[in-house]
């Protein structure tokens, strides 16, 4: 790309890319692209980022281990259905923030309501063909991408606040989500993708802008919570054990 894109746009692209991995199973064409096409270039570029390198390496190893051509899409579809559409039963990994937030694993809890409100503020809504709660991982990632682009167009405290809050709430559940993916994904692809996700969010948090306003007590509480989970997050930036 000849045109220079802003740092926020780069980040938005990564958020969108992650969202695309979790919204639906990959097609054979998409997998082919990841093996040797535009997707492979993207993986290459992301892999140069030290914190993301281990997760990207895991994704590439998984792609190599998958069968050729259509067989790969079959294998990943199977994994996707088992992990994220519930067919794995006790070995499913629900992709909804609500499930991880409280004592009982239920969807459509407060995180969904919060995300619905955020989407309304952004003037967005979940597409008609997508009957998923608004706290679906892919939707949260897409919302963050939208927030970053909004900031590029018109910076504001309110939007920064939304972006920061979304990042913090994701950091509260993604480590658990990623750990379950590691445990139950037999292909290694989604384990890798979730590792990249966790490492990316950790890096986002580490590089957040601290200079623009006084730290509120809520933000201090968020910081404490995230710091406590730092070892788990660091684990995703460390090399994953070989298959």
């Amino acid at each position, binding site marked *: 790309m000849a045109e220079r894109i802003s740092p926020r746009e780069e980040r938005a692209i990564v958020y969108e890319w992650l969202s695309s991995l979790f919204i639906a199973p990959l097609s054979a064409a998409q997998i082919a692209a990841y093996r040797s096409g535009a997707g492979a270039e993207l993986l290459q570029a992301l892999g140069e980022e030290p914190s993301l390198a281990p997760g990207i390496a895991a994704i590439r190893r998984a792609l190599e281990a998958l069968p050729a051509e259509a067989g790969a899409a079959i294998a990943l579809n199977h994994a996707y259905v088992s992990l994220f559409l519930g067919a794995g039963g006790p070995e499913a990994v629900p992709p909804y923030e609500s499930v991880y937030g409280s004592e*009982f694993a239920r969807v459509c809890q407060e995180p969904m309501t919060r995300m619905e409100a955020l989407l309304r503020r952004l003037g967005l809504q979940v597409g008609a063909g997508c009957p998923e709660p608004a706290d679906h991982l892919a939707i949260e990632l897409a919302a963050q991408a939208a927030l970053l682009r909004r900031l590029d167009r018109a910076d504001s405290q309110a939007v920064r606040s939304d972006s920061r809050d979304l990042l913090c709430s994701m950091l509260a559940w993604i480590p658990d989500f990623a750990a379950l993916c590691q445990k139950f994904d037999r292909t290694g692809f989604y384990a890798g993708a979730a590792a990249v996700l966790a490492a990316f969010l950790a890096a986002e948090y580490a590089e957040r802008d601290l200079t623009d306003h006084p730290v509120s007590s809520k933000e201090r509480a968020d910081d404490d919570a995230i710091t406590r989970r730092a070892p788990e997050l660091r684990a995703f930036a460390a090399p994953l054990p070989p298959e």
Partner: protein
Amino acid sequence: MLTGSHWGAFRAKVDNGRFAAISPWDKDPRPSPQLEGILDSVYSPTRIRYPMVRRAFLEKGAGAEPETRGTGDFVRVTWDQALDLVTKELKRVQDKYGPAASFAGSYGWKSPGKLHNCRTLLGRLMNLKGGFVNHSGDYSTGASQVIMPHVMGTLEVYEQQTAWPVVVKDTQLMVFWGADPMTTNQIGWVIPDHGGFEGMAALKAAGTKVICIDPVRTDTCTYLGAEWIAPRPQTDVAMMLGVAHTLYTEKLHDQKFLADYTVGFDQFARYLTGETDKTPKTAEWASAICEVPADTIKDLARRFAKNRTMLASGWSLQRQHHGEQAHWMLVTLASMLGQIGTAGGGFGLSYHYASGGSPSADSPVLPGITDGGKTVAGAAWLSSSGAASIPLARIVDMLENPGKEFDFNGKRDKYPDVKLAYWVGGNPFAHHQDRNRMVAAWRKLETFIVHDFQWTATARMADIVLPSTTAYERNDIEQVGDYSLRAIMAMKKVVEPMYEARNDIDIFAAIAERLGKGKEYTEGKSEMDWIRSFYEEAAKQAKAKNIAMPGFDEFWNGAGVMEFPVSAEAKGFIRYQKFREDPLLNPLGTPSGKIEIYSKNIEKMAYDDCPPHPTWMEPVERLGGAGAKYPLHIASSHPRGRLHSQLCGTKLRTTYAVADREPCLINSKDAAARGIKDGDVVRVFNGRGQILAGAKVTDDIRPNVIRVNEGGWYDPAEPGKPGTLDKYGDVNTLTVDIGTSKLAQGNCGHTAIGEVEKLQGAAPAVTVFAAPKNATG
């Protein structure tokens, strides 16, 4: 708004279209703690979201690679694709193999509601399609519901009991034999009224002496401070014979009652005393079998005779090999005591279920949707083959042996050759026995279609999976109180359907439409049209009883509940009182009009496994049985905290730290002998299979018995490999799949012996999935 469930009526709080909270109906005397689980069902993380088809089935057609069922390799499809596929399959199987090739008996607990009765709705479709193989019986009372008509002339098991106020006032000795009403009365087939808890609270307050005969010290036992007697499981008939023998030899039995109200006691007595088989059924004889001391057995006989005694039995006793004998012998024992039809005396088979004994209200019967009952003209198979129905629990036998003859309640029939099964509102891969055998037999099916709202082991075994709504995503109407029928309640829709879930009725109507039978299926009625028609039918009946019911709109938009009065007479109801008052004027529905301790009808059947009077027969395997291969009995009772197999209240966060497994209750002596500690992962196994469970060491279970509740998720470590380990504790991997006897062909979910050991090494490694080498996209 107000609505209801298997756990009771409740008010749902809705916040911006979200089901936010549940509070019990203020008229529920004892709301179940399980109500909270309703939120878990609607918002389960394992909801089935989209129509799914097994990949091999979709790509290669019906019957392709059946050994790959259960691996979760599904492809998402649109509703139109799914409905077209289902229709095509129903037509194909009907055209190619005839109507007796589709099994749609579909057993299960579904949800309450007179309209959205998915099992009936399925039958309605299949009748319009051209017929299907139905079932008779159920897994609750499979044996007793067949033998009781021979003995008492009526179904007995689902009929109103002597009212609790009578029991509280007049029963002096309450015996719960294999029953745990504190646990099981939480649920009901319709919306439970929980009146049984009021009864038991009053019993407790009255200080009535209670005995619990059970291998486990149950919640009921603890609650009532009862005396706990723990015989070996499956030996209750022997124990009862020991009691009967004591009554007989000590002349404590009521000869007049036996003479006036029963037939066949003399023949039975010759068996009891050993005249026929040289084995007197003494207390000592019984003790050697059941492991209850002979003196205790004799003491029970004397106490039963001396007191006004109610023998309240649960259904575990008959869910075993020769299960027919248990309640037959119980009735014989009660007949010897001579208190049947007295206030607070006799026997009862439903105090533990849906609050039997909760006094009946004077109420109309609320009708519901029917399955049509008519078959398409030209369905000659119904008259010629006669195999329109099988005893439900013989389903695997049917798949293994098409065309084979089987006995059932005096008749001989042939198993049909079934190629397609359609299951809604149930989870056979939880409730059926001998899981490994079942998985192998299921491969015979070319097509397996399932509706459910959440992923179950059954859904995962399907070829076509359709997401249906929960009862809280649609409107309906239902009664409150299986026995009391004390109210009619609106079941108002709480939230819009989740994901792409649809109501079963709409799924079936769409298929019917594709079959050209849309109008016949729906009768042009909307959901609210149907509900209104049921209510208005009930209102007509009520009017005839001089009970005024508001108009439907006032009912539906107003209180949403119509309660009916309970008369003093109902509170004083005594079962079989009229029979006792005048057995000639009020005979039983038996050939003799009396209690048949000896049944000539059963004698004519000449079944080797069901003699003409109550008989002790060794089950195929039991704790302490001769040649028993394993040292422990495996009890498989209903879990306390959920309804059968629903994944309620899952604490997901812990699943990756310590796998959440079914608890395995184990006595401290048995645990110590095996080096098992509380919390250990254990392997429970026998010749039929092996499962993992989590040990819970307690002396609330007797030695040599372990208990793993039914309902665990069947998850084989290596699908397709015979004898593979089930990782999450589906106890039906271990149970035996035989009929109780040729009479009832009921299920034997409580017949299983096995062994337990601490799991050696790490939990089984996850095997890497590899796509088939020749897979094409």
